[in-house]
């Protein structure tokens, strides 16, 4: 049975949410991502609603963590490469 979960996209975080949704498809197999005007709908035949919610929470937070850490992380790797 297909489960689905819908998540509103806050105006300020819209770009972040769109990016998270795009990456989510690759990192978690078998999840369909549908973009609506102010929301993202996740659905999957092998996962329940609570798991989809956890995945969305993790994906969104991960995208935010990535955005915050990106420059400093890149600088650290650059230091290593030298």
């Amino acid at each position, binding site marked *: 049975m297909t489960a689905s979960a819908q998540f509103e996209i806050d105006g300020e975080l819209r770009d972040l949410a769109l990016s998270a949704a795009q*990456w989510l498809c690759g990192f978690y197999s078998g999840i369909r991502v549908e973009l609506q005007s102010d929301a993202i709908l996740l659905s999957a035949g092998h996962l329940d609603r609570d*798991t989809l919610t*956890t995945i969305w*929470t993790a994906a969104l*937070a991960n995208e935010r963590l990535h955005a915050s850490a990106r420059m400093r992380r890149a600088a*650290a*790797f650059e230091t290593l490469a030298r």
Partner: protein
Amino acid sequence: MSFLPLRARALGQDRVLCVADGGRFFRTAPDFVERLGFDRRAPDDQPFLIDQGCAIAPGDTLGEAAYLYALAERATPPAALDYLILVPTLRCNLSCSYCQVSRAPVAAPGFDWDAATLAAVLDAIDGLPGTRIKIEFQGGEPTLRPDLLRAVIDRCARFETRQFVICTNLQQLDDRILPLFDDPEVYISTSLDGDAETHQRNRTASAGATAQFRANLEAVIARYGPRKVSALPTVDPADPPEIDALIDSYVGLGLDSIFLRPINYQGFARKRHSASREQSDGWRAYHERFVRALIARNWADRSRVLEETYTAICLRRIFQPGADRHVDLRNPNPLGKDYIVIDHDGTVYPTDEARMLSRSGVIDLSIGDVFSGWETERRALLNRHASNYDDPACQRCAYQPFCGRDLVDDIARYGRIDLPRLETEFCRRHLHLFDFLFELIYEDDPAVRYSLSRWLRLDGTPAALGVTHP
């Protein structure tokens, strides 16, 4: 504001794994991850994060140094060339359907090192800078030329630490080969595809050849003990052997480590086993059942520890950076630097898979030859893409600290190295493996903890292998 070098990955309902850039990790609830991601930390969140090495407060220079140290610990250190894969002959006395090396017939001329190539190989060995050497003899069937093996082994006498691995089908044991095997620094690697019927179907084609192989394998184990011999199965994912039968075929010989290899998309397998380009969910499920079968056996019989080799390597990648030097899973993955392959004609390749691709006519990945050297522009070009640091998918992946980069695998499967990472078999395979390992790490089962602890070479079994933050 603190720097949070963390990535998050959902582990199922109500559980999220957080992994720091240096590889430390904890499991937590989605609420905590949400607080992390959007800077709404509770008062006791920060001390926990700092204690775990997952946050660096502003001005914390010691924390910054520790962060850089952890990153460095995870990175492949630059190393001198000390590992050679040598192919003294391409001739072979078998015709395995999935052969990845594009062999030549036993009687074919022109597929062995000639005198000039041998001399150049020995000169190259003389020029190696370090005090240790590991040499792996591949083929074809290298025992068809025991004289060449002996010449190389003797030339390595000056090294303080020596290890030689002869990769052989063990179809032939005689007075020319046994003296080589008798050397305590020589190890034997062979293929054992399971029970006699499976092995015969895949490799030996006749009952006589199968029986000969089996007798020879039992003879070398009886003569030297099981620690001198490693055997690897090559499994057809479309028709894998029954798990207990496969394990029994190894256990019965005293062999504890089983490297569960699906048919490699190389050589003859590209035509005869074209489905091997991508692994299926069925194969991944088989692999999980196999590992769980080993866990059950280890719990039932504590007198020995069975392991699936690659699973154990990935587990040690999580907890023990640098413990293994598995050249197919490391980051960066320098090509043609600390190990090279020298072919039957003296051509130098960065990996054995690169050699196979070239032999199959797919792409020439040679980086030089043993006569004129291999510090070439071709090698430099490959090494410009030899890490996962810059990949946008890897930058977001919780498993980046444990994972690697395999350009040659991408080229073999897709003919290119710029396919989006998440679409590659290398990525899918390792996402699955690390998901499975973290499932095991957090499983509240003493049998699982017991096996994981043994695979980590721990003296005891800790009460928990992973940290949880509620």
